[in-house]
């Protein structure tokens, strides 16, 4: 085995505690620089997503990283707040995925938020979609979805369509080609932007109690249109 005293720069950095890898390491709880770096190899060019994200933020396509608490908030508390916010968004995505679940058996999705290296899994169980936040990583057969938290925020808020997110490099998919295709279609079906735009146009004419039914109706129309195609 390698002697620590003769370790390379990498090993020395690791020995020094720059990274203390543990099963479910994520940026809200641990340093993740090397884990994120290795993503670029395991999922080739996945770090390009981070660059695409800040470019989209600069262009106003997705939200900027807002402050988490004021200056008096400790780093630990800020991390907790960040984690809570991320999980809240992932839960919204869970609902959207459930709504858009295709008829065929979809693959499970392992979503990683690059900046924090927070892994979560969406399992298609029975007719439901179940989120497990903060997992060790993907399981065999999962389609890995590499993205950033503001992208999820933009998606679930209807600010950005999944197709645009994929086109802009804000989401990259990794895994078996067929599974990836299904996952792509699945994600594309959660396009909340168009429905929200239409809903907003109609909002002047409907009561808030009608809102949910209207969205359902729009989705149903979209499904029918797809079936026709």
């Amino acid at each position, binding site marked *: 085995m*390698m002697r620590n005293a003769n370790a*390379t720069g*990498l090993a020395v950095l690791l020995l020094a505690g720059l*990274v203390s890898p543990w099963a479910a390491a994520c940026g809200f709880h641990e340093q993740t620089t090397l884990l994120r770096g290795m993503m670029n*190899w395991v999922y080739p060019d996945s770090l390009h997503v981070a*660059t695409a994200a800040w470019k989209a933020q600069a262009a106003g396509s997705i939200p900027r990283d807002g402050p988490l608490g004021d200056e008096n908030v400790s780093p630990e508390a800020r991390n907790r707040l960040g984690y809570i916010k991320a999980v809240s968004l992932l839960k919204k995505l869970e609902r959207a995925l459930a709504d858009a679940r295709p008829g065929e058996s979809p693959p499970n999705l392992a979503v990683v938020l690059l*900046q924090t290296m927070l892994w979560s899994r969406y399992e298609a169980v029975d007719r439901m979609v179940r989120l497990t936040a903060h997992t060790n990583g993907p399981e065999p057969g999962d389609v890995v979805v590499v993205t950033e938290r503001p992208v999820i925020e933009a998606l679930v808020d209807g600010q950005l369509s999944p197709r645009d997110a994929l086109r802009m490099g804000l989401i990259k998919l990794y895994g078996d080609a067929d599974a990836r295709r299904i996952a792509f279609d699945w994600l594309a079906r959660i396009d909340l932007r168009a429905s929200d735009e239409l809903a907003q146009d109609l909002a002047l004419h409907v009561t808030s109690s009608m809102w949910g039914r209207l969205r359902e109706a729009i989705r149903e129309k979209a499904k029918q249109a797809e079936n026709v195609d």
Partner: protein
Amino acid sequence: MRTTTVTTELLRKPWIALLTLAVAVPALGQDAGGLGKDKAEQVHKRPPVYSPFAQRDFPTRPFFGDTHLHTSFSMDAGAFGARVLPREAYRFARGEEIMASSGQPVKLSRPLDFLVVADHSDNMGFFPDLFKGKPEMLAHPTGKKWYDMIQSGKGADAAIEIIVAFSHGTFPKDLMYFPGTRGYRTAWNETIDAAEAYNDPGRFTAFIGFEWTSNTNGNNLHRNVIFRDNGDRARQVEPFTVYPPFGSDNPVELWKWMEGYEKKTGGSVLAIAHNGNLSSGLMFPVVEAFGRKLDRDYVQTRAKWERLYEATQTKGDGEAHPFLSPNDEFASFERWDKGNLDGSIAKKNEMLEFEYARSALKNGLKLEQALGTNPYKFGMVGSSDAHTGLAAMEEDNFFGKTTPQEPSPHRMTATFFDNPKTGVKIMDWEVSASGYAAVWAKENTRASIWDAMQRKETYATTGPRMVVRFFGGWSFEPKDANDRLPAHIGYAKGVPMGGDLAAAPSGKAPTFLVAALKDPIGANLDRYQIVKGWLANDGKLQERIFDVAWSGNRKPDATGKLPAVGNTVNVAEATFTNTIGAPELVAVWRDPEFDPAQPAFYYGRVIEIPTPRWTAYDAKRFGTKPLPGTAMTVVERAYTSPIWYTPKR
């Protein structure tokens, strides 16, 4: 500090000859080789011809490059996400636009003239191969297991296992790339092939090289090894490593390897150490090294192989430290002085003397008296040590030290390094956009640039490509500063940076012809200083800084201190103006305190006016709010190799 200026000629006119030759004309078709004072005098005494440039036989322009760049072939660079390969690194350095590992296009403002891809020799090439599933990886059960995990979608787990294996020291030895293994040989051959492919004599020099990475207990004793030779010779060996039994962490063993290489191949190599500031006081020992008392053999061998020192780079500046040089107003510059490389040992003041270039140059004078050879008679270069494959060290085009530090809104506020046990913490904003090596060679070829490095006709810059001349002799006169061809006079009447002055003529003191031109697209110059170090008659080492040329009509005060040049930086807009400072500085200076019995060294330090630091550009471009304490301006500079005076014994 008393400022003594014999002649300060601030010539506002275009400094036509040096500027033109230094910047615009590719030095093609010139012959290679060293240039001594005798040869220069011979050239100068040739029968006169009309053209002042005909029959000229000295370096006419500095070549700018990076002697220390890592690509994805370096284990740590790969782990940080770098995917740029050596070939792409050379393409980038010679001016092409490439895609950075973070997925953004990047290009230099101007091509560099040369590059050394100096990947860590230990495990060279491991990372790309691991993920390619090369046969040598799959032949090992653990390698196959990791590869299968990646292929089956468990790549994240594989990444964690790899990191844990390293951090716990359980990485399978058989899987590592040692000298003698097929994988290591392949990686070295690919490194050589890349350099051979992009070496373009006369236009761009791609050196073959590697970094030997001694890091015991986190103390940085790294050296970059640079080959003068082409692949036919470099291929006859494999790079020296640190891991036993093939390698060693003792520099003495590296020097033996270098000697072995030269004997075996008839080639030539040199080694450049760096980051003494992270060595816990071990970089420049004066008593013992690796448990052995310094002796004549040690000092001679070190002086032979280590003729340059990398005095500035991304992990901090290494010229001087304010604790050691309290009277030097410019000593506190881009400091990384909190601990060693991994932060496992916090810095103590008593370490500093053995970590910085200036103190080493001073201690070298003393060691020479005791042991007959000055082991620290080194010249200066700067380089990047970037682990991105990108030698991008311009403040407005800085692509960081590692891939996570490539431009993004997060890098200004992220933590680079944190060792809670010792409290040593480095933020990403502390990474320095520095530097480059400038080499006065006669042509842009491996042989010519390497020979210039060997004779120390080099200087370090912290990024800007300022043109700096520094000549020492016994007979420079004030009027020499008025000549528009100072190099003609400099080489004829003296020695260039890296040279020696010996046998002081009776009643004479050393004189220096200094000249500097601003970077053509950079900032004006504040001042040209000469740093002198000497061994006094009482056996104590001394130093003093002299302002010898400066911009404007500033007058030194009663203590000799020159007023500050001013500051035009608009941090919010990340702008500055060249309304202060001077585009060129030239002067002749005579040492007013010279004692012919005292050994001494002199080197030039050229100071730019303040400019926006990369952090200011980031804040402007990303709208990022800097953390308290973030440095937002920078005073760029250059350090020349010294000229030494050695009394006659």
